[in-house]
């Protein structure tokens, strides 16, 4: 089950809107697929990010993948605790394992993301492979 109040990108990031601020992380499915994460590169506060383009890199014992920003805007906060304790990604994907908070102008990017229902259907289709 994925949290109903969040929105989701096809590259398995979640986004949570709170006023003009969007919190971004990766889904439990993504964390499960990656396995044990060994390296995480997040942007610095003040950097700008663009919807659909990489804002960081996550590397596990199995793979190295880009983290794509679900929204455009400016990074106003980075979760330094996560880079210290990467096991949080598998334990609390939608909570303490958030990655960045982005100040956005407007919510067009956010609204174009998948709802929880849509993301679950998307995962079922992915599972077939």
């Amino acid at each position: 089950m994925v949290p109903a109040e969040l929105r989701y990108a096809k590259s398995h990031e979640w986004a949570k809107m709170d006023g003009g601020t969007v919190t971004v992380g990766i889904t439990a499915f993504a964390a499960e697929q990656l396995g044990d994460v060994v390296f995480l590169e997040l942007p610095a506060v003040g950097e700008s990010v663009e919807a659909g383009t990489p804002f960081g890199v996550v590397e596990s014992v199995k793979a190295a993948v880009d983290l794509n920003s679900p929204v455009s805007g400016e990074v106003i906060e980075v979760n330094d605790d996560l880079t210290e304790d990467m096991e949080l990604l598998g334990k609390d994907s939608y909570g303490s394992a958030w990655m960045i908070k982005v100040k956005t102008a407007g919510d067009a990017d956010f609204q174009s993301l998948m709802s929880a229902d849509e993301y679950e259907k998307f995962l079922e289709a992915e599972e077939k492979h």
Partner: protein
Amino acid sequence: MKLIFEKSVPGRRAYRPADNDIDAPARIPKNFLRDRPADLPELSELDVVRHFTELSNRNFGVDTGFYPLGSCTMKYNPKVTERISHYPGFVHLHPLLPQLPGGEMLVQGALAVLHDTDMMLREICGMAAFTMQPLAGAHGELTGSMIIAAYHADKGNDKTTILIPDSSHGTNPASAATAGYDVQTVPSDDTGVMDIDALAEVMNDKVAAVMLTCPNTLGLFNPRIKEICKMAHDVDALVYYDGANLNALLGRCRPGDIGFDLVHVNLHKTFATPHGGGGPGAGPVGVCEKLIPFLPTSVIADKPDGSYWLDYDRPKSIGYIAPFYGNFAVILKAYIYTLMLGTDGLERVSENAVLNANYVKEKLKAHFDLPFGQTCKHEFVLSASRQAKNGVRALDIAKALIDRGFHPPTVYFPLIVHEAMMIEPTETESKETLDTFIAAMIEIAELAQSNPEELTGCPRTTPVGRLDETLAARKPDLASLE
């Protein structure tokens, strides 16, 4: 097993030079002398021989057992190529000789090897010319990407992007990015090959090239490959052939005839030279006619009298990409292998490589998930998704195979298949070996149902058991001297 440093006994020696009884002042300037003796292990010759013999016994290679590491083409490396490449006439050549005035006449044999390997690869791949210099597959990709950039710069084309399918080898996007291009990933369709509609959406004037592995990492040949080449050529983009999987096509079809503009060949895979821990690679790059001016310097040219020389006068060349002329001994072994097999032999290579892969695939498809079930080429990808539901993942199956005397297949690649196991048997394995491997895989699949814990504890027969890869990556403790 102890490290060789732990076996060290102060004062013990393998060899004692005669005492120095000449009273001559040391001629080494003081600033080059050590402050303290080098921290080297002190052992007898027998200690050293036993140490390294024991280490070698713990190694696993193609000479030890079956090694179905997908996309690596771990075929047998015939020993005759080793013997010939050790001939003193080759081993004792100095690489600077052909660059000295008149020196090229002293190395005509070596230049002929480079020249003739180039000619044979042209015939096999359907390309206009090769550079033998790239030292590995990824080095070939980078060389190719630089040639692509040089071509577009020469024509005044404004190109920014290289398109790469999501099933590509990880080195493809890395090579394109290193050459300064943006990388755009193109998804696969339901049949496991590049989605041609998705390609059409991103194909535009900014595209410098499309980089493809063919057959791809699922072992599938794209039936619409000619259309893809045409779509690229229509916007003056070049099409690059990653030759890692050329073993499937030898003597059957040629990248140049399909429409590819550049190709690299992994001599250490397709042409049976040792690799992995066994030796360096070689990744010669072949190009179509219009790209010849951009090949690296130097190129081997021939004179009217049939002798060879090195041509350095190439104003449009991308320049030097390797010291001297590439990994000469590797090229030499590939040359011997190709001559030894001949046209008929090379055709049998691809035929048996494809037959072996399909045989293993058909025998295993009832026991593991097979996401793409069509006839494969030289390799195929199983998924351990079914076993993962019982807690047995691709990694556990890989470790269990070690206990059964096999090198594991490539796991968790390509990324588009969950719990992927990528199996490439190669043509050099007998049916008996394949049957033993199939039986082991079926036994493991059955254990995954009946006794999954048995598998998650593997390997048990090796000097060390399951290593903590996560801890090793998070907190690397690299052995080094103080």
